[in-house]
Each structure stands twice: as structure tokens, then as C-alpha cells.
């Protein structure tokens, strides 16, 4: 017997298994980043007056703005890739998923230059509590980006996307599930940008 409700929705809950699972996973992610954001608030209140603002001014707002735009773009393209599958257009899917992966890579490259720029000026996590929480939060977010890239890269490459030929609905569900995760990662950045760079 196969596990049911992998492709079709269970009538009384209206859900497939993976969609429920990803939402519960995202709830736990909210708690993970929620814990860190709470730590940020706690540490900011405990820090000397103006300390967070002083160290925050050393970050590059233009780079972060570009990164915000890049990530928002990737959120749009990931939806388009899923919509293409719904329209049974596999080539478009490859295109939009590829663009999503490209955006994710651009994000990481910009982040790399931001990090090395800080190290070049001898700014490290240990320099101040603000820099500590900056590197921790953005580092953890970066790991989430990489995790998403691994999953989406798998579904972009032939070894993952060959499921399209045998079970297109199942594959579409996988892309949707990954897309939900990707939106969440994007949303975390939308919170990180103001509290780290702008405040």
C-alpha cells in the first residue's frame, strides 16, 4: 500500500501531505528566527545607547538594497516556474527556475563581497554585539538560501525534473512546496534588511 494523499488532496482536510508538512516546518522556522529576533531586541536594549546604530552604519545599504530586489525578483520567478508547470510548459519552468537559481547566486555573491569587505576592515563577529548578531542572522539566512538552492537545483537538473515525465502532478507539488519555503526565506530577509541596515 502506498502512503495516500501524496498527489491528491484528502477530501476532509483539503490538503496534500507535503503542503501541510512545509507549513508546519515554516512554523518552526518562524520560531527559530523569532528566537533570534527576540535575542536581537533583548541585546539592543541591553547595549549602550547608540551602540547598535553606530555599528549598523558600517553596513552597506546599497548592497543590501540590491540584494532585497534580487530576492524579491527570485520570489516572483519561483512562482512563475510553478505556474508554468500548471500550464504544462516545461521549458518555461526550466527558464524561470534557472532565473530563480541565478538570483539566489547573485544574492550570495553580493553577500560574499559584503562579508569580505567587513573582514578587510577588520570587522569580525567579535567586534561588537551588533556585528555578532549581524553575522549570525545573515549567516543563518545565507545557509537557508544555500539549502533552498540545493533543493531547487535538484529539481532544475534532469535527475530531479525527470519526475515530470512520470508524475507531473507530483512534480508540480514539489515545486510548489519548495516555492513556499523560498518565499519564507525571502520574507526573513525583508525583516533582516530594516533591523540590521536601516534602524
Amino acid at each position, binding site marked *: *500500500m*502506498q*502512503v*495516500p*494523499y501524496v498527489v491528491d488532496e*484528502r477530501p476532509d*482536510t483539503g*490538503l496534500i*501531505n507535503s503542503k*501541510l*508538512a512545509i507549513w*508546519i*516546518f515554516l*512554523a*518552526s*522556522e518562524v*520560531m*527559530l*528566527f*523569532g*528566537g*533570534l529576533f*527576540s*535575542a536581537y531586541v*533583548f*541585546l539592543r536594549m*541591553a*547595549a*549602550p545607547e547608540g*551602540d547598535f546604530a553606530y555599528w549598523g552604519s558600517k553596513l552597506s545599504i546599497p548592497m543590501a538594497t540590491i540584494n532585497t530586489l534580487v530576492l524579491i525578483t527570485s520570489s516572483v520567478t519561483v512562482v512563475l516556474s510553478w505556474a508554468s508547470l500548471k500550464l504544462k510548459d516545461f521549458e518555461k519552468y526550466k527558464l524561470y527556475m534557472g532565473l530563480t537559481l541565478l538570483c539566489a547566486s547573485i544574492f550570495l555573491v553580493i553577500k560574499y563581497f559584503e562579508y569580505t569587505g567587513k573582514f578587510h576592515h577588520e570587522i*569580525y*563577529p*567579535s*567586534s*561588537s*554585539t551588533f556585528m*555578532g*548578531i549581524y*553575522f*549570525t542572522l545573515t549567516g*543563518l539566512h545565507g545557509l537557508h538560501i544555500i539549502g533552498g538552492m540545493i533543493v531547487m537545483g535538484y529539481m532544475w537538473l534532469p535527475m530531479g525534473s525527470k519526475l515530470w515525465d512520470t508524475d507531473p502532478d507530483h512534480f508540480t507539488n514539489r515545486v510548489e512546496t519548495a516555492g513556499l519555503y523560498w518565499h519564507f526565506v525571502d520574507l526573513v530577509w525583508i525583516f533582516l534588511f530594516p533591523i540590521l541596515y536601516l534602524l
Partner: protein
Amino acid sequence: MSHDSHHKKENFIQKYIFSVDHKIIGLQYGITSLLFLLFGFSLMLIMRWQLAYPETPVPLIGSLLGETGILLPEIYNSLGAMHGTIMIFLGVVPLAVGAFGNYIVPLQIGAPDMAFPKLNAASYWSFFVGGVIMLASFFTPEGAARSGWTSYPPLSIFESGQTIWLLGMVFLITSSLLGSINFIVTIVQLRAPGLSWFRLPFFVWAQFVTSFLLVLAFPPLEAAAVLQLMDRVAGTSFFLPSGLVYAGSVVDVSGSGSPLLWQHLFWFLAHPEVYVLILPAMGIVGEILANNTRKPLWGYKSMVYAAVFLGFMSFIVWAHHMFLTGMGTTMSAFFQTTTMIISIPSVVILTAFFISLWGGSIRFNTPMLFALSFLPMFGIGGLTGLPLGIGASDIHLHDTYYVIGHFHYVVAPGTIFALFAGIYYWFPKVTGRKMSEALGKLHFWPSLVFMNGIFMPMFIQGLAGVSRRLYDGGQIYAHAQGVLEWNEFMSISAFCLAAAQIPFILNVLMSLFNGQKVDRNPWGATTVEWSAPSPPLPHVNFEEPLEIYRGPYEYSVPGENKDFLPQTVK
């Protein structure tokens, strides 16, 4: 399903090691966690020797501890920290959730497997790696963690062994995250037709609430662990205040962090964790009480509501562990109030259990004895918690042996007894054979006596003001002199408790091969798992698709021939 002939013949490794069958994974969890329980208990026996006979060579294994054979203070600290960590994260939770949850929940809801079988295996192997890391930490040059299972900074930032502890925790947290997502989806999605929410056995409800606690409470600890790792490895000072003096000199960090932040994040997990420890135990006790009183659980619905409310409230009581940190009276007042409120649902469930006994024709078999003893033991554990939840009385009792006695009553003769009850109860389902009643009673009665012999004197010592985590058991303190003689009494009880587990180990091993063979429903039980063959069929569990026609505890229904109506019978 006969047409499902694409099942290939599995070899030993596929079948027992890298299995994706929830029953095998449940057994993997069960065996691993029982071994860890034994190991964690043995660590405590070494500590108890030191407490009873301070600075005398430890018999038998003394040579492993150094030339003199005396337990050194730093190793004592390691053993204490690792006893807590192993018992909670590698023993009780994996046994209660990983083993019982995995094996029983899909059967009780009539599902062929968990919703995500591969994720299930990943969850076990992540747990296994975490356990290996924790064990390996004893053999690293730094030694195992020695800052207590609570890992309070600033101490935990400087003490050796903590980094590898944090690494192990990451794997354990990942494991329970994957596992609990799987449980929630399984319970929501894979219930058999006709199995509505209020037809679920109480055990399934307990596991359901437990899974939510794990999903939502563990991530903040993961956040805290990441921050502590940064403090240790990258030189940040999230938990270190400015101007902190350590070992005679001011610590060279940027400062302005706060040790209190760790305590908040840690207890935000660790208080719900208490309910993770107790809820599955309550679920097991509920199943066994209904079965052996031959009547429905009294107040089933109010128990379900109580369990859900308990789960919700457990997120807003964490700071009652922190009354003495100077966080302010307003905070204390709030958390003291929520703590009093959360005692209500526990009392509702316990009361429902007691009333369930009323008028039942009780069968005193081994699972029932363990389940029955859970009630007063958990009762003692719960009621002794009330003075700790009130700020004023906590000032006197905080960090004393009273606290140790309190939570051990909840977890040891409480949860662990319930887990033993579950092992005796479901052993026939897993193996097709019953465990020996005689050995079972030889296991139960001494265990009950010696458990109380260990933990009851802790209340006496704690009320006298003896602090926990003292290497010499309080010898140098004047106020402890009057209660010191209890140390030897408790230690001897602990050694006897260890001896009392021998009948259990023998019973499991002997019953596997020589136990009395039984049919699929030896206890005359109503819930769905007893409709499956013993052991249930690999990967599918049941011979044919099921339909559920009634609630979980239809025992002694008036006008029926038999005193039980299985959920699957029309």
C-alpha cells in the same frame, strides 16, 4: 494488498538497518533509547557512590576514573551534565515519542505507515548521530560537557566540552523536528475512514500535542545553541556582560551581552519539554487504564481539551525557572499566575484517571501495576511543583535537592513507569508473545520501593536547604549536617534500583523466544492496533483496508456479549 507485488525481497540491512518501515524505526528508537537510559542511569550510580562515600575509590570501575579510583570534581560535573542530557534527549523523549509514537500511532489511526517514511528514517539516523557525538564527547581531550544540562553561561562559555555538546544537540534537535512534523502530518492526513478527531485514542492526542510542542519549542533552543556556539567559537559575547571577571582577570570580549538571554531562550524550550516528557506517558497510562478497568476513560473529551490547553499554556510559563535571577516582580507575578493556571489541566487529566478506576473490574497485570503507580507518583511530582511555581516559596527551595526530587518524581517513577507499562502492554503486539507476569512483578515492586527510596529523601534534604550539584553532597555546610545520613540511604536505594532492572532485562530477552504465544488481541482491547496481526505486516500493517465505526474505549457496553467492542467492528 496482494496486487502490490512490486515489493522486492529486502536483505537484512534494508530490512533492519536502513528501513523506512515505521515499526522497524520505532524498534530502532526503542532499543537505542533503552540502552541510553541504562547508560545515563549508570552515570548517576557513579555519582551516587561519591555522594554516599565521598572521596573513597569507586568500586569496580574506579580504575577508569584515574589512578586513585576517586571520582574527581570535574568528572563529577561531567557525569551530572551528561546524565541530564542523556536521560532527557537520548533516553526518555526518544523512547516516548520516537519509539512508542512511531510504532503505535500509525497503527492506532489505521495507517499503512507514517506520512513520510524516508523522513522518518532520517529522523532516527540524525538522532543516532547526535547520540554518538554525545557519547564520543567522553573520549575527547576536553572531556564531556560539564556545565549542567541547562548549560548556563557564563560558565558554559568557558568550560571545556561544551562545543561538542552543542554540536550533538543540533543533530538531536533536527531529529525531533523532522520526527514531529511527520507525526502531525500523519495524524492529520492518514486517519482511517471514520476515525474522526474525537474517536482518536487519548494516546494519539497526547502524541499530537507533544509534536506541536517539539516543533514550536525546539527552534528557540536551536537559536540559543547557535548563539552560544558563536560565543565559544567566534568570540562574540551574546551571553557575556561587559567587565566579566573570569579566573582572576577581565574577559577580553566586546561585552554588553546578557546571561539572562540564554536562560529565557533555554527555558522557552525546556519548559514545554517537561510536557513532552509527560504527555506521551499520560497517553500510555490512559490506554492501559481503560483496558484494564474494562470501562471507558472517564471524561475523555475533557482530557483532550486539557491536553491541548496544557500544550498551549506550556509556552507561557518558562520564566518560573528564573524567579531568582532578578528579572523583576512584575515578570515573576505573571509567570507565577500562568504556572498556577497550568496546574489545572494536569489535575483534570489525573483526576479523570482516578475517577476512571471507580467501579471498574480492575485486572492487576504488570502493565496495569506500572500504570496505576504512575498516578500517585506523578501526583507527588506535580504537587511538589506548586511551591516551586510560587515566587516566595521558590526563594527557599530554588536550586536545592527539593527541585531534584520534584522533577525526578515526574520523570522517573512518573514517565519511566508509564513507559515500562507501555513496553509490557504492547510487547505482544510487537512480538506475538507476552512477557512473563512473574518477572514483571519482580521488576515492578522493588522498582516502586527503591524509586521512592531515592527521591523521597531529596525533599527532606532540599527543605533543609541542601543545594543541588554539590560534589561532596553538602558535607562542608553546617545546615546540611542533620540530613546528611540520607545520602547513603538514597545511594543504596539507587544501587538496589539498578538490581531491580535485571528481571526486566531478562524478561525482555527470554520472552522474545520463550514468551507465551498469544493471538492478535490478548488484552481484549478496543483500539485499532489490536486489529492488526502480531507483529503487524511489514509496510502495510493491516491485511485489508479498515473502517472505523466507534469511539476508542467502548468497554462493557450494556447489552453486548463481549465486554469490549473494537473500533473496527461494525
